Each structure stands twice: as C-alpha cells, then as structure tokens.
C-alpha cells in the first residue's frame, strides 16, 4: 500500500517534470531563437522549418555590433558606469536614512517618515515632466547625472532599509552605547554588517531596475556616445530596421551577460525579489 503510493508519487513527479520541462523550454524559446538567428546569414533567417543550428555560421554580425559604427563596448561602459554609481549611492544614502528612521529618536521623525511613505505611491510619470524642466534648467540634460541622481536618492530604498534595521534588537545598540560607541560606529560597525542580506536584496533590485531602465535614458540622453545598452539597442533597430540577424546579434549582446549573471546568482535574485515583493 505505502509502496504503491510512493511509486505513484514518483510517477506523477516524473510526468510533471517532463511536462513542465517542455513548458520551460517553450518559455525560453524566444531566447534560443534569438541566439540561433544572430549567427545566421540574412537569407537563412526565416527558413522554415527553423534551422536551430545554422548551417553556415556568420560571426560578422557580432563584429559589427561590438566594434562597428555603434559599438556595444561603449554602451556597456555607459551602463556599467551609471549602474555602479547609482547602486552604490542608493545603498549608502538609503541605509543611512533607513538606520535613522528605524533606530534613532528625534523630533519630527514620524512626520518625515509619513512624508516618505506618501511619496512612494507617486508614479514615475508624474515626476518625469517636472524633472525634465528642472534638469534642463540645471544643464543636466544629455548628461549621465540626469539618470544617476534620481536613482541615488531612493524613497523605496530608504523604506526597505528602515524595515530591515527595525528587525535588529535594540539591545545590541544599547550595549554598544554603554561601551561608548558613537552613532556612526553603531551604524557602520555594528548595524550595517548585520543587514548584509538586506543590502544584497536592495543591491539586486536596484541593479536590475537601473540596468534595464529605458524611459529615463530615452528622455534625458541625446548623444549616441552617452547611450546605455537598452537605448543603444533601440538605436540599432532604428538604423537597421530590416537587418534582423544584426538586430538579433545586438539583442544577444544586450541580454546574454545579464542572463549569465542571473543564472549564477539565481538564489539571490529570486530571494531578493520574493522577499521584497517589489516589482520594477
């Protein structure tokens, strides 16, 4: 009885693995098609049945994408620069403010925190138009700072860090205070190391948002040499509207490194998104 029940559950598991394995492969088919198309010659692209493994391999597309007129090297450099500064800045200002909101007592704290909470439900579209005018007056249009600055001062990041710091027991800080530690030491040496998982979560969220961000760069950046990867990619499409194999090589170049990073750090990505519930 028990054995047959066990056998049955193994059988169900095997069948489900096959069915959902097929579904998972279907789910990543667009990526596989993209990869295969990027190595093809334009004439072979739309051949049906689909040649998943091209008969004639063509690497010229990649040469053009990385070293040609609109080089992806440049777009990568821009994206890396913007994302790194934004993420580091965001983690720093968010954890500082989050720590104060969670662990320090001062006048006006509740009111200020309420103000922060209230701005969280403001959609980014409301801020785009006035920010454009502001950045225009400050001379920040067509500069990477117009993308970086709004990401560095994050209300959501502050809120998340505050939640994480709140879970730390007050006794740790009391003990540090008795030992004569200053507020900076309580933050930097004692509290921050304990919130490493929170920092990783915030890091992963801000990284994926800013790496994939499209609307802000589209509005604020004008020159091709300042473009980020998503913007450079749409530029490619506009310039080579029917050269699909080239476009696919550009898409692979834009996606593959990110996919590799997600695959390697999948546990962190999945936990980060699941634990915060935040959707970019």
């Amino acid at each position, binding site marked *: 009885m028990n054995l047959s029940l066990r056998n049955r559950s193994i059988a169900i598991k095997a069948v489900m693995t096959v069915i959902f394995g097929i579904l998972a492969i279907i789910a990543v088919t667009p990526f596989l098609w993209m990869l295969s198309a990027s190595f093809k010659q334009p004439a072979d692209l739309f051949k049906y049945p689909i040649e998943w493994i091209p008969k004639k391999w063509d690497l010229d597309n990649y040469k053009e994408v990385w070293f040609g007129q609109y080089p992806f090297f440049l777009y990568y450099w821009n994206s890396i620069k913007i994302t790194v500064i934004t993420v580091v800045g965001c983690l720093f200002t968010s954890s500082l403010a989050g720590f104060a909101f969670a662990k320090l007592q001062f006048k006006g704290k509740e009111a200020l925190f309420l103000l922060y909470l209230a701005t969280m*439900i403001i959609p980014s579209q409301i801020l785009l138009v006035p920010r454009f*005018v502001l950045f225009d007056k400050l001379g920040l249009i067509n500069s990477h700072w117009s993308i970086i600055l709004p990401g560095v001062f994050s209300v959501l990041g502050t809120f998340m860090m505050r939640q994480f710091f709140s879970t730390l027991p007050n006794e740790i800080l009391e003990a540090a205070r008795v030992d004569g530690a200053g507020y900076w030491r309580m933050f930097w040496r004692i509290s921050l190391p304990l919130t490493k998982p929170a920092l990783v979560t915030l890091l992963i969220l801000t990284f994926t948002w800013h790496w994939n961000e499209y609307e802000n760069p589209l509005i604020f950046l004008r020159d091709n040499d300042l473009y980020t990867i998503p913007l450079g990619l749409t530029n490619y499409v506009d310039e080579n509207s029917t050269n699909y194999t080239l476009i696919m090589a550009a898409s692979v170049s834009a996606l593959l490194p990110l996919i590799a990073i997600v695959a390697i750090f999948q546990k962190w990505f999945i936990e980060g998104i699941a634990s915060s519930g935040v959707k970019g």
Partner: protein
Amino acid sequence: MNRNKRAETIAGYLFILPNFLGVFVLVLFPLLFSLVMVFTDWDYLQGFAGVTWVGLDNFVKLFSDEYFLKSLENNVIFTVVTVPCSMVIGLVVAVVLNKFVYLKNLLRVLFFLPYVSSIVAISIVWTVLYNSTDGPINAALRSLGISHPPGWLADPQWALIAIMIMVIWTYTGYTMVLYMAGLQGISKDLYEAASIDGATNLRSFFRITVPMLKPTSFLISVTLMISTFQVFAAVAVMTKGGPINSTTVLAYRIYIEAFQNYKMGYAAAMSWVLFLIIFVITIVQWQGQKRWQNHF
C-alpha cells in the same frame, strides 16, 4: 541625559540629510511643480514665456481627447487581461514546481529569466518573432494548417493582444517566484490532514493552497496593477502606439505630449489622472483585503 538626547537628534538629522536633500530636490519639489503645471498651457519650446494659465482647461480637454480616451481604454484592457492571466499561470507553475518535479531549481530559473531580462531586448526579439509575413510564429501557424494567421503587431485587431501575450510571458516569472515564496509559509500538516481525510491533490489545491495564498495574491495584484497601468517600454519599442492608435497607453501618451509635442501642462495633467487611477485601485483593493480579513 538631555545632552544625549540632543546628540541623538543631531545624529538623526545628519543621517537622513543626504537622502532627504536628494528626495527634496528630485521628488518633493518636482511634485509641487507638477501640481502647478497642470493649471497651465505650456509650450515648452518657448521657455517660460510659453506659460499661460488655463485653470482646469487641461482636464476638460482630456475628456474630449480621443487619443487619451483610447489610451485609457487600452490600459484597462491591458490590466484586466494581463494581471489575472499571469497570476493564474504563475500560481500553477509555482505549485507544480514546488512539490511535483525533479530539477526544481533549473526549471525555476528558466521560467524566471524573461522577467529579469531587459524588456527592450525582449520586445525587439518578439517584434521579429511576430513578423506577419515570414516570422517564425506565423510560419509555424501556417505549417499547422492556418492559412491566414493573425497580422500580430501590424494588425490593429491583434497588436494589443500580441503585446499582452509577451507581457504575460515576462510577468509569469515574477508571480511564480512570489507564489513559491508564499507556499513555503503553508504548513505541511494541513495537506497531510487533508490527504488523511481523502482529499485529492486538486481538492487540496482549491481548499488549502488558494485560500492560504490570499495575502500573496493581494500583494501581487496590487503591484502588478500599478505596474501595468504604467506600461511604457513594450509599447514604445514594439508599436509606438500603432497601428492606428490600437496600442497607445497612458504612459506613452504622456511621453508623446511632453517630449514630442512639448505640451508640458497637458502632459502633467495626464500624469495626475494616471496617478488618481492608481491611487483609487490601491485604496479599493486595500479595503477589499480588509473586508475579507474581517470575514475570515
């Protein structure tokens, strides 16, 4: 003691200062500025000289603006279709992956990849896949005997559907991950008790899993509704709102009015309508959630 208190107050302000300065300049000030802008007709190409006070005219104009009304309609369709579809698919995948498969981690990352990938790159790939004359999707449909497959992005009847299919595909990774996390919180004892009582897997799913996941479902539906009402990149990259405005959405209209037509006041007014919609949805769902909890 008093001195300590003062030191703590100063420390508190100093810790918050960097973030607050940025938030003040880049969030609070623009917010107030935008609230003023909605009462103006501002042709930005003329600088501040292009500002005329028009009172509530922008809002009146909105309700006879066919582009705006079409965008609103498309946004509603978009949300009503994509949110429930990605929730149901994500839930089924999460439940099966959670208990009924081998290679769980591998399958999970495959379903999850579309969600973390750049929406711009994904939109470009799908645009080629959807190509109505020789794209692989229609080639496959023709080989299955459908002689006149849909025109997808080129056909006003199908373009929005095509975008929604792609978006559901990306959102499923998100809903699956959240549901899998939610499933960890359901005690195994419940399922064991049910199975002793002779409940089938399917029955346990509807009687235990679905009700126990209500908080997760609530969280997902709120975040997804907020984000679907702001959908922009997929539309901007795949169709630019076309063909004949069949895929235009609010975020895209705001972008066109502000940064192509340079009608800053009008665009600002539109963005506040978008905010109002999101706000009402959030409040209504919050109330619904509270009522459900009281009933329980």
